[in-house]
């Protein structure tokens, strides 16, 4: 516990969060669950950005600014995603991903 915090700590945390996100995106049946998992992945990336900013380039704020962009994109993504989810739900009365196989050739 006494070892100083290093960049590796933050990266590990981000990695774990990212893996959880991947796992969720791959396994959740509910589309809203998938969307939430994707949000987790975005956050994992943001943690990394903020950490890089702090550890590697403390003189500027580029990393933070980039994280803000990511945040914006994530917001846009979730809004559209949820809107789609609603539309789909109205049309097909289901929220489970395996019920959609329009991609099947």
């Amino acid at each position, binding site marked *: 516990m006494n070892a100083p915090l290093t960049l590796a700590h933050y990266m590990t945390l981000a990695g774990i969060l990212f893996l959880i996100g991947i796992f969720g995106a*791959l*396994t959740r049946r509910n589309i809203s669950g998938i969307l939430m998992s994707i949000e987790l992945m975005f956050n994992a990336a943001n943690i990394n950005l903020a950490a890089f900013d702090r*550890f*590697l380039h*403390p003189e500027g704020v580029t990393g*933070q600014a980039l994280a*803000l962009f990511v945040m914006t994109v994530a*917001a846009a993504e979730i809004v559209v995603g949820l809107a789609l989810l609603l*539309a789909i739900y109205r049309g097909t009365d289901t929220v489970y991903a395996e019920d959609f196989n329009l991609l099947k050739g």
Partner: protein
Amino acid sequence: MIDQIVFYSLALLTVASALAVVLHRNTVHSSLFLGLSLAGVAGIYASLGADFLFGAQIMVYVSGIAVLVMFVVMLLGRASDLHLRQVNERWMAALLVCAVAAVGLFKVARLHAGTVVTAAAKPGTHDIGRLFLGEWLLPFELISLVLLAALLGAVFFTRTEKAS
């Protein structure tokens, strides 16, 4: 010492609630845990000294997105969902994928095992503002366009058919 305690507890909070997000059977609970996890991330930002990011995280994510998700989930929720498995049959393979990816990610993380903070944290809001309205003005405007498009998209997809 304080730093370490803060970090580890925040990390624990974040990871645990993230796990709950992907594993919990009830989607509503999942969304609540999502809010918690995002709040944990906000704490991490604070511990990194990214004050503006911390604020944005709280405002956009915790109070915006997480709440939005919760509303939608509640809107779509059905009682019967609680009896269904919320994880599909692919979880084993997904775990394998994660394991493989983990190897790479942690390999990289280890490269920075020795990188420590070299300078004191300073407030960044001022700098970010200068950056956005100065050097990064074009991307900044573009991202606002993206937001606008997302807004229009959301309206388009959610409007009801009776208009026509």
